């Protein structure tokens, strides 16, 4: 919880014209030792002077840096790195009935896929099902999902064959469970295809 004084400090900086973001770096003792501002607009120089004054009142030894944001760009993405990346959210296996449920996400939408073929095969099938649930065209079918013994665990290799004339796609992954490995290996196999398919969508 921030103290009212800390909040006043941050609010004073944010209230400066054009300040979009205030970031803090803390010392080991928990004091603010560096303040970073992102400023939009042409008046960064005068903002630096006032910001320096404000920082000196609250944290006299803190350094201050200011970055200028030139123009605003449109973005409809909800991710911080790659806007259209398909991500595995969770994978659950019900051992009583042998069914798998895989959740994947694309741009904040969640797709859910199911399979009743156990964690190894079912993980891959449920992942393909979840992708289709997100209306992503996936012209591949599952050829195999196998795990192999290595000196460092049991990674899963998934082979997918396209319904069009092309080579098989292979993915490999090793996670905490067989189900997770299978789901990740499936996404891994589709990696480049999904990048293209989702960026075109």
């Amino acid at each position, binding site marked *: *919880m921030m103290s009212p004084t800390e*909040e*006043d400090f941050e609010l004073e900086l944010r209230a400066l014209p054009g300040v979009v973001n205030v970031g803090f770096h803390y010392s080991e003792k928990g004091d603010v030792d560096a303040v970073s501002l992102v400023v939009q607009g042409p008046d960064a120089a005068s903002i630096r002077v006032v910001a320096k004054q404000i920082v000196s009142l609250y944290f006299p030894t803190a350094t201050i840096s200011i970055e200028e944001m030139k123009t605003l760009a449109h973005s409809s993405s909800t*991710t911080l790195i790659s806007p259209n990346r398909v991500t595995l959210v969770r994978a659950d296996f019900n051992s009583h009935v042998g069914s798998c449920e895989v959740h994947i996400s694309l741009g*904040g939408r969640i797709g859910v896929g199911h399979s009743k073929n156990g964690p190894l095969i079912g993980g891959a099938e449920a992942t393909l099902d979840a992708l289709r649930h997100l209306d992503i065209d996936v012209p591949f079918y599952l050829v195999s999902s196998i795990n192999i013994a290595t000196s460092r665990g049991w990674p899963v290799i998934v082979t997918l064959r396209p319904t069009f004339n092309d080579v098989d796609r292979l993915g490999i992954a090793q996670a905490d469970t067989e189900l997770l490995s299978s789901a990740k290996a499936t996404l891994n196999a589709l990696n480049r295809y999904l990048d293209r398919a989702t960026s075109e969508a």
Partner: protein
Amino acid sequence: MTDLEIATDAVIASTATTEPWLFQAMIEELSTAELGLGFIYTVLDLLAKRYDLTDAVVVLSHDALAVQEFRLGGRAVGADLAHRIAREPGVYCEPDVVPLAEREAVRTACQLALSMRMARFTASHDALTTIANRRTFDVALANSTVRAARYGWPFTLVLIDLRGLKAINDRSGHEYGDRLLRSFGFALRVCVRQGDLVARIGGDEFAVILNNAEGNEANAFIERLRQHIVSEGETIDFTMGTASSPRDSTDPAELSRIADARLYAKRGIIHR
């Protein structure tokens, strides 16, 4: 009920049914503090833990503050990322696994927290100088005089008038005049001790409450102020009047009148 209170109730009511974890966080925050910037960081932290996020930024829009971006852990956003996401208020996550409805609920709750904190700040602070405003000063003066009367805790009230501000505005423009006012407000803040109060109570009128101060401490403050202004190379001419409590009075209005009369006496003006 005010509009803000109605909006608060609406957000809490809808959050209770759609996102119980967020509702719980709001209730916990409200039990110990008022919704503010700390709540925004708390919610980002909870969201990160809930979805195993490595990063999260909420972009908010506010009438007075324009676009504001808050990043998980209070970290800096950086110009490139700030530039990429500034146009679209919302919650940006890495990895991108948070459902849209939940991101919207988080954004709305954070928006409310920012609006409420900003409303409290503007209600108690002067917009130009960001020191306390007249309302805050009146409350603080009343409290100080009560403590002086009841416990004998002394304090000194300093009233300050900037001289020639109108002429400066006419000659050099209001932008310059505003910069001068901000500089003077900053000088006052630098020169007081922790626990003292600095306020702008009129266009060119400032007030300072120096707690536990009589005579020497007040003189030391005035000297610090003059030296600071000289060292900053500013040319600000000002006049002061002081009154101490409980020595001069324990009534806030009377104390203000005494300080005001002394200020005008120094300027050679008969105050009617």
